[in-house]
């Protein structure tokens, strides 16, 4: 079984990403959308948590939400994948289940 975890809150404002990371197993994917896209950036107070999680899970970030917030792809943690809306849909179909961390 593979699960897609969707997070939409800033990790420096809410603990939903931390809760998510603590409940993922190997092979899962975390998709960061809306205010969670900031959590895909390197050199932040939450980067090490995400980098640690990436040993077991893949991390994707929604491109349109990054662009809206003025965050360029060079600022992202190495290994984070940028997806568009079609890629978002593909992730939901490729995984068996989807969980949103509200």
């Amino acid at each position: 079984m593979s699960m897609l975890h969707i997070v939409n809150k800033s990790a420096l404002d809410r603990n939903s990403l931390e809760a998510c990371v603590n409940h993922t197993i190997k092979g899962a994917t975390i998709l960061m959308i809306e205010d969670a896209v900031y959590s895909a950036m390197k050199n932040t107070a939450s980067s090490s948590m995400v980098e640690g999680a990436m040993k077991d899970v893949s991390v994707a970030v929604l491109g349109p939400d990054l662009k809206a917030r003025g965050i360029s792809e060079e600022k992202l943690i190495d290994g984070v994948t940028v997806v568009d809306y079609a890629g978002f849909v593909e992730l939901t179909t490729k995984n068996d289940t989807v969980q949103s961390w509200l």
Partner: protein
Amino acid sequence: MADVKKFLYVNRKAPYGTIYAWESLEVVLIGAAFDQDVALAFIDDGVYQLVKGQDTKEIGMKNFSPTYSALGDYDINKIYVEKESLEARGLTIDDLQHLVWEDEDDDWAEKDSIKIVTASEMAEIMDQSEVVLSF
């Protein structure tokens, strides 16, 4: 003018995910019409509001970030951004919009509006404010 108070607008939310940032900007602009002494504080996720290069075309929302550059025209030129908040988010002043105002007492010289301050300096700014509005 009599009865001028020191207003401080405190911004702690990222733009777009919630309506706080935009609402704050609207209130600041409305308040500007009342000739008060206005200052803006950006702390925590609020610093994301000033990040340059925002492009909201693909999310179908209004990009209100260009409005920050109009604040100088409303004599709003005290924009305090907290150093610790920027650092925790991997950002520097170079990632922010360059906001300026024209000083009429100095031959309309263009001056920077953004000032980076520490958390303790921000505490002083808050302490010296007479009206604090939080977003």
